[in-house]
């Protein structure tokens, strides 16, 4: 297997190269107006925004190649800053285009706005730009905390409509008009992006629903606010899911069908059963707790590269915080190492929060692996999760592959400490689920 980092770097370089070419062809284009800097900047930002929007669709298409070889968390990170950049470029393009129009026609901005909006495709493009801006605002950290995951997810779906609304304007824009080969290439970029989305985000889950008939078999309480959902279906081996991976689950009841939640498998998948373990974080996840047995499940996936395929070193340290134990529990059972040199460090704020403990103890006893529970307040020195403390627990940390899944705060602390301590980045494998 090629290292994901190398593939990711190559892909990122390709994306930037495409962006540079899109902007460069504006500068070299004979049709570029030379009235002022505003005009040139409007054209360049518009092309860059249009190109970026298509790239964002491709990155979020859930294409298995991207998910496996680049990694879900890396794609989400790229999408996070790439999406912001596209929205900023769209706003800059809109403002500068009006400014350039007003300058070219020696008119005021209000008249320029009226003139511009009377052009074919421009009203639809403006509606698209406003929708993108709304999505961007909803994703701002401060606002995002106040919006439920379900609303945020629904708002995000509007971006497809926004991108489609702006397409006619892009194709007829003066940077592309009259240049058939570039117009065809641009159209293909968009139709392929939408085809990827349709193939992997719509058809694949529908196909999986039809083929596997996944249904809720049992909902089991693990702790006051953590539940395990056991699902059964047919031919589940065809999914080729691996312990450590996750799906986006949509439970088809009247109150839960509209939202897809990313949850890791908390047990190795079998031909007939899948299990997830879920913590109640909001109204949406709480509703999952009340799902009736027999509910059909629409599952997108499997996604994520937090699997034992990533392992390179002879020893493994797994670090789990709270419900982050889910993927670790699944991997802990199957990870196969000579000498079984596997240590699982499980951090929880109280004994009650240690979910699946009996299963972990049983696996450890059977396989000879080790589980270390760190329970209690984080201020307690015994619960320290620094590189030094972890080194004390396992000995020779640098000889380990470290798998990490915890809350963003705990994962951040552990990651920073490991990096500061000189731990090699490529030996740290993690999945982040914050949205």
């Amino acid at each position, binding site marked *: 297997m090629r290292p994901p980092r190398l593939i990711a770097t190559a892909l990122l370089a390709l994306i930037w190269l495409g962006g540079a070419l899109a902007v460069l062809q504006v500068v070299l284009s004979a*049709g570029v*107006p030379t*009235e002022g800097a505003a005009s040139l900047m409007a054209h360049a930002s518009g092309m860059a925004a249009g190109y970026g929007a298509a790239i964002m669709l491709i990155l979020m298409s859930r294409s298995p190649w991207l998910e496996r070889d680049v990694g879900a968390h890396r794609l989400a990170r790229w999408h996070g800053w790439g999406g912001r950049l596209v929205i900023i470029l769209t706003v800059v393009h809109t403002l500068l285009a009006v400014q350039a*129009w007003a300058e*070219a*026609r*020696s008119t005021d901005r209000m008249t320029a706005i009226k*003139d511009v909006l009377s*052009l*074919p*495709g*421009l009203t639809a493009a403006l509606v698209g730009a406003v929708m993108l801006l709304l999505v961007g605002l909803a994703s701002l950290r401060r606002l995002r905390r106040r919006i439920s995951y379900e609303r945020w997810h629904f708002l995000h779906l509007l971006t497809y409509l926004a991108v489609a609304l702006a397409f006619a304007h892009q*194709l*007829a*824009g*003066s940077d*592309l*008009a*009259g240049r*058939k080969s570039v*117009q*065809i*290439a*641009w*159209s*293909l*970029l*968009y*139709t*392929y992006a*939408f*085809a990827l989305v*349709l*193939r992997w985000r719509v*058809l694949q889950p529908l*196909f999986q629903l*039809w*083929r596997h*008939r996944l249904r809720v078999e049992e909902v089991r309480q693990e702790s006051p606010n953590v539940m395990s959902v056991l699902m059964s279906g*047919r*031919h589940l081996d*065809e999914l080729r899911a691996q312990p450590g991976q996750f799906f986006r689950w949509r439970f088809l009841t009247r109150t839960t069908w509209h939202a897809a939640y990313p949850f890791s498998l908390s047990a190795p998948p079998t031909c007939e059963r899948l299990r997830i373990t879920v913590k109640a974080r909001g109204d949406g996840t709480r509703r999952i707790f009340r799902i009736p047995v027999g509910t059909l499940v629409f599952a997108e996936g499997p996604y994520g590269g937090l699997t034992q395929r990533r392992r390179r070193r002879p020893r493994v340290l797994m670090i789990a915080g709270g419900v982050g134990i889910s993927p670790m529990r699944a991997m802990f059972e199957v990870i196969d190492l000579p000498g079984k040199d596997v240590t699982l460090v499980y951090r929880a704020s109280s004994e009650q929060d240690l979910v699946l403990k009996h299963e972990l103890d049983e696996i450890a006893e059977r396989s000879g692996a080790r589980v270390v529970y760190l329970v209690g307040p984080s201020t307690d020195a015994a619960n320290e999760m620094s590189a030094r403390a972890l080194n004390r627990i396992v000995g020779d940390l640098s000889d380990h592959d470290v798998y990490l899944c915890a809350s963003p705060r705990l994962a951040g602390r552990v990651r920073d400490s490991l990096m500061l301590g000189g731990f090699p980045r490529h030996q740290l494998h993690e999945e982040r689920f914050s949205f």
Partner: protein
Amino acid sequence: MSDTAFEVGRRTPRIARLAGAPSYLIRWMLRIVTVSLFSAATVVGVSLGIGAPEISPTSMVQQPVALSDR
């Protein structure tokens, strides 16, 4: 085949019965779906590109103004 099995077989829609097909058939079906989808995307993309405007609406309005300014 017993009467009950016959009844179930008759009442299950054909598309649902297909879901039980062997894996290799399903894999081929998915490949065909993927190829068809991207072929359609190619046709639509090329048609959109060919049918796209030769002259941009913005340049149509801008040019006479720019010329008259000079």
